[in-house]
């Protein structure tokens, strides 16, 4: 994979995703997109705007509300020669398609020995007034499934580069977008060959005193926290795994071993989550170096309330990351 792009453009995350889809569909006619409202309406949040006009109704297709069939469309089409991208509107709705994801898509190669190019795009998190059934963060569950890759970009550029890589990947990839980031702007490299490697973490900021592993919406907040603490002379390293499975444990472990302190920051609730796995890696592989207990900065273990101010008060902000880092610095 190469990152030969030079020119960049400031784009919102949804635009980065849209660009990735356009470029890959232009490049390879086997790429198709199916989902609820992805076609004529251009997606409930506008992410797939203009695609159906450009690529026609057969390649960009509005489906009924049939989540099992949606993923099944991807599995079947991927098995006979297309490279489907399936959109599940909200991550919560993936619960309906779980058998198709876990028992069918993820096991296809194990049973058949052959590739299943399939991207399942979905959107997580409490970034809108949608409430307890439209805001959940269950990314950890899919990371526990052999045969599945899980990607979770934290900004527009990564979303573009990783989605393009996911579409070119020969394995099923669950691509988790974050509602709270869709309109966040970033410089996005242009050019069809801007690809980012799946399975490689990105160190967003180098630092020596503490390692913060942050995902999704918490990456920017972690960077903000790092900036705040820098003013006190605290040097924070921020790692964005970008791919949650297979996880780039080496990068994470090397950083923790060096700083001796770990904070994991995520929008999901803490118990049995992504953060649990990272903390476990720290304990298993960096115990002698650990100067303090790892800290999970996460949403409280309660449902997501509907009113936006409440939902936002539930998700950890930059202040919560700052507090988490302070705890990691004090601890043990």
């Amino acid at each position, binding site marked *: 994979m190469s990152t030969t792009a030079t020119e960049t453009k400031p784009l919102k995350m949804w635009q980065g995703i849209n660009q990735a889809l356009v470029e890959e569909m232009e490049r390879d006619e086997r790429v198709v997109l199916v989902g609820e409202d992805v076609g004529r309406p251009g997606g409930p949040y506008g992410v797939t705007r203009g695609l159906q006009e450009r690529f026609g109704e057969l390649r960009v297709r509005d489906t009924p509300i049939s989540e099992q069939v949606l993923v099944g469309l991807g599995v079947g089409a991927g098995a006979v020669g297309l490279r489907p991208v399936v959109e599940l509107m909200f991550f919560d709705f993936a619960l309906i398609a779980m058998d198709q994801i876990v028992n069918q898509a993820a096991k296809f190669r194990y049973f058949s020995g052959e590739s299943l190019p399939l991207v399942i795009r979905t959107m997580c998190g409490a970034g809108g007034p949608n*409430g307890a059934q439209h805001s959940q963060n269950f990314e950890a569950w899919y990371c526990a499934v052999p045969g599945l890759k899980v990607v979770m970009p934290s900004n527009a550029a990564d979303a573009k580069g990783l989605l393009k890589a996911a579409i070119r990947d020969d394995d099923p990839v669950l691509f988790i977008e974050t509602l709270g980031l869709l309109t966040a702007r970033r410089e996005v490299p242009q050019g069809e060959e801007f690809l980012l490697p799946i399975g490689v973490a990105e160190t967003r900021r180098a630092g020596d005193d503490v390692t913060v592993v942050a995902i999704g919406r918490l990456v920017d907040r972690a960077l903000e926290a790092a900036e705040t603490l820098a003013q006190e002379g605290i040097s924070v390293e921020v790692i964005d795994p970008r791919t949650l499975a297979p996880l780039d444990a080496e990068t994470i472990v090397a950083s923790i071993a060096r700083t001796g302190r770990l904070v994991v920051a995520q929008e999901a609730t803490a118990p049995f989550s992504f953060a649990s796995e990272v903390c476990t890696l720290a304990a298993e592989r960096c115990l002698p170096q650990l100067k303090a207990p790892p800290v999970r900065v996460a949403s409280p273990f309660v449902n997501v309330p509907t009113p936006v101010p409440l939902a936002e008060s539930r998700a950890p902000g930059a202040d919560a990351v700052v507090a988490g880092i302070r705890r990691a610095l004090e601890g043990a």
Partner: protein
Amino acid sequence: MPEVHVPVARGDGALRTAAGRYRLMRLSRRFEETVHDQHGEGQVPGPLHLSIGQEAVAVGACAELRRSDAVLSTHRGHHHCLAKGARADRLMAELLGRESGYSRGRGGSMHVAIPSIGLLGTNGIVGAGLPIATGAAYAMQAQDRDDVTVAFFGEGATGTGAFGEAVNIAALWALPLVFVCENNQYVELTPQDVHVAGEIWRRGESHGIPGVRVDGNDVEAVREAAATAIARARGGGGPTLIEAVTYRWFGHYAGDRAAYRDSREVDSWRARDPLVAARAALDDAEADALDAEVEREIADALAFAQRSAVTGPGALAIDHLKETA
């Protein structure tokens, strides 16, 4: 919890008369208009799927229900809630994110559940009420009650697996269950022909249960079809599938300008306002009095909601498990 005066008790019997039905349709309409306004003023901190234009379906289908009967509703469910006996004030408070709301203002429009009046839930997941409806109906059957369950769903929900599973088992077990498909022609941002193959009302026959299509803008037609289905269900005759053809006047959600629709189409449906027909069954003076009553109820409900405390973070952690209640 302090409650305002509600002029007419709903629930058992309140919808048995044409006046009662008209009154509730009017209440539902005015409720929606009011929360729509509130939404425009930034006072509704959650999503809003308005049922304006569809009042006859909820009221007609609930007309013969008792408090002990159950209803499963959808993301577009304020009219169902009111028709099953929800109080306008607490429902309004819920939508406005107030502590006095049915779910303490945390749930909002899609997460209203009032088991005490048999309203087992609006729902954010399309189709998800249907399996739950089979459970309520099964319990009624197993307990030898002559209660029934009514499951509302949009035509979009016929695409879900839950729908097929539910119809099959309801037919198989002869459950006291009435499926009411509120076909309002659109499924989010696409027309129903993107979603529905064939004809919905005919999905009954291959399962050996009756299927009927009715004018969903005619409250009496809906009531009649529902009455037949409910009587059948109470008598052990099993489920019925009713497709009520209607229209949503507004977009999918408050804020959706529904540019995907032809304005003439909208106009033609608005011209068939279900409230106008229902009002015609009454004499004008009676109707005017009911309208005035409704205005007061809505004004009181809004005042109640507005003077209730805004739900704060303190409400977040409760009611997940019994001990945390």
